[in-house]
């Protein structure tokens, strides 16, 4: 088949113009917020922070999300001071009492135009991060408060899902142990074993506390549970403490957090949707010896799905529709209400930089400075070479627990 010269030229320029426009719009049409989110997942955290910082002064409807994403970017790069400031700003905005007038104004708007006040799991996760930050900054009292707030914020769509954030329970258990409050510590670790029986370290802690109470038979049973769950046995083959060893915990923020999409049946409502990510666990080696693997302590998508909020969403939607219908009856407003107020589309905004899971590795190790290697594996246990991380000078001290907080990401150490 032969084409005329004119037709060929037309198709060539048409395709060039189409793809060129799409490309340019893709590059030029993004906000600083969107660019910050993109740079975050390209592991360019400094650039991500540069973009997110530009959103800080914009006290607009997405302010809470700006602060949560900015906090996570600072957290990932290790500036815990600024991360704390950003998370606190986000939490304070989420907690702010809205005046009656503001409520009426918000009711008149569509979800997408409303001020984002956070989903229940946003509050939970913000407090989790604040708790981790406080621990890293050595403020155990503040950490205890934040982990408790995380549990209080976890309302749950059913009673069985309320306060089931295992990471909060686990670190509360550690804090109670340090303060000598062994009964509280036992309750905290037992909560972890009930909500997440596959997490090995809570079994170890329970066994250890019960042994202190001289309940040796029960302690042995609990310790057997630990041995079954941790194939690497990084906390040892017995409960006998070697006081010459140090205690290293690695908290891994793994994968990508959940997104929100319009419900396919109830388009006015949003629903939590898991984000796909490849990495499922990390194997930890210290100066060339394999120490163990990380174990999931919390699934953020599960927390988001079960944190409730549908009832609240339904109530707000009902009130919104009633308000908008009422406004349509107002002379002058009625004709333009669709334009002024927007439709009743779902609010699909979400905390973009949240991880998909929290995983933990813990091991008793001889004191020293080590080179830590993390090898990541997918669900078929195939190594993901692009996710590998190596960190130097990780210090383990006798009698002093060390907590290292890391993030999984493709190309994290590409520079």
């Amino acid at each position, binding site marked *: 088949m032969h*084409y005329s010269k004119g037709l*060929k030229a037309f*198709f*060539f320029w048409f*395709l060039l113009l189409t*793809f060129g426009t799409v490309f340019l719009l893709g590059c030029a049409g993004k906000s600083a917020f969107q660019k910050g989110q993109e740079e975050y997942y*390209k592991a360019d955290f400094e650039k991500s922070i540069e973009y997110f910082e530009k959103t800080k002064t914009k006290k607009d409807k997405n302010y809470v999300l700006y602060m949560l994403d900015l906090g996570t970017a600072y957290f990932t*790069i*290790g*500036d*815990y*001071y*600024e991360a*704390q400031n950003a998370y606190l700003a986000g939490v304070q905005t989420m907690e702010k009492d809205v005046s009656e007038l503001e409520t009426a104004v918000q009711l008149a708007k569509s979800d997408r135009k409303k001020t984002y006040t956070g989903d229940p799991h946003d509050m939970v996760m913000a407090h989790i991060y604040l708790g981790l*930050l406080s621990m*890293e*900054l*050595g403020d155990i009292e503040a950490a205890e408060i934040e982990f408790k707030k995380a549990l209080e914020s976890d309302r749950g769509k059913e009673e069985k899902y309320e306060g089931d954030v295992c990471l909060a329970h686990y670190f509360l258990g550690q804090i109670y142990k340090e303060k000598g409050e062994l009964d509280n510590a036992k309750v905290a670790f037992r909560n972890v074993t009930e909500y997440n029986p596959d997490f090995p370290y809570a079994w170890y802690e329970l066994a250890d506390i019960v042994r202190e109470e001289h309940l040796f038979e029960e302690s042995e049973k609990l310790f057997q549970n630990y041995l079954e769950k941790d194939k690497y046995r990084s906390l040892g083959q017995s409960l006998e403490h070697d006081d010459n060893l140090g205690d290293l915990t690695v908290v891994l923020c793994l994968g990508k957090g959940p997104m929100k999409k319009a419900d396919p049946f109830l388009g006015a409502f949003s629903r939590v949707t898991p984000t796909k990510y490849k990495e499922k666990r990390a194997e930890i*080696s210290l*100066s*060339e010896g394999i120490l163990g693997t990380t174990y999931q302590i919390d699934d953020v998508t599960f927390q988001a799905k079960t944190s409730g909020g549908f009832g609240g969403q339904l109530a707000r939607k009902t009130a919104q529709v009633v308000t908008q219908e009422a406004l349509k009856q107002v002379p002058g407003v009625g004709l333009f209400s669709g334009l002024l107020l927007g439709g009743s589309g779902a609010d699909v905004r979400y905390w973009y930089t949240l991880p998909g899971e929290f995983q933990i590795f813990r091991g008793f190790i001889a004191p020293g*400075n080590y*080179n*830590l*290697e993390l090898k990541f594996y997918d669900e078929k246990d195939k190594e993901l*070479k*692009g*996710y*590998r*991380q*190596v*960190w*130097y*000078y*990780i*210090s383990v*001290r006798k009698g002093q627990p060390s907590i*290292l*907080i*890391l993030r999984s990401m*493709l*190309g*994290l*150490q*590409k*520079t």
Partner: protein
Amino acid sequence: MPIFLIFLLLVITSVIFYCSTTGTFINTKSIHAPPIQYCNDATGHIPGSKPWILGGTCCCTPSAELMEQYHKDGIALDLTYEDLVRMYREAGITTDLDHKGCNNMCDHGPHVVKGGKCMCTPTPGTKNFEEVVSGVFETVDK
């Protein structure tokens, strides 16, 4: 040029673009670290090293215990802990006594070894921490 060649060109370009942005990176970072050049609170003090403010390589936060170690090593024998703290403050250098957890990204940053005025302990498990401890870094942040 036939249409299918243009289409093929677009497909190839898209594939190249996709591959350049996802999944082809392999981390070849060595598991052998450069030696520690500058000690700090996270690495632990290296006996025999002098305080940064006296031209040495110790960036540990001044403390009574650290002064004892210095004196044991025959270093800064004429100085007390208070003297050392005052020297850092007079030089405009912040330490963990002033604030913590900034990873040297505060207004006093970068870290003193990179030419800044912040000697707060950098955050382990970050690129900045490794650069400060090893003394190996490409650019100064300010």
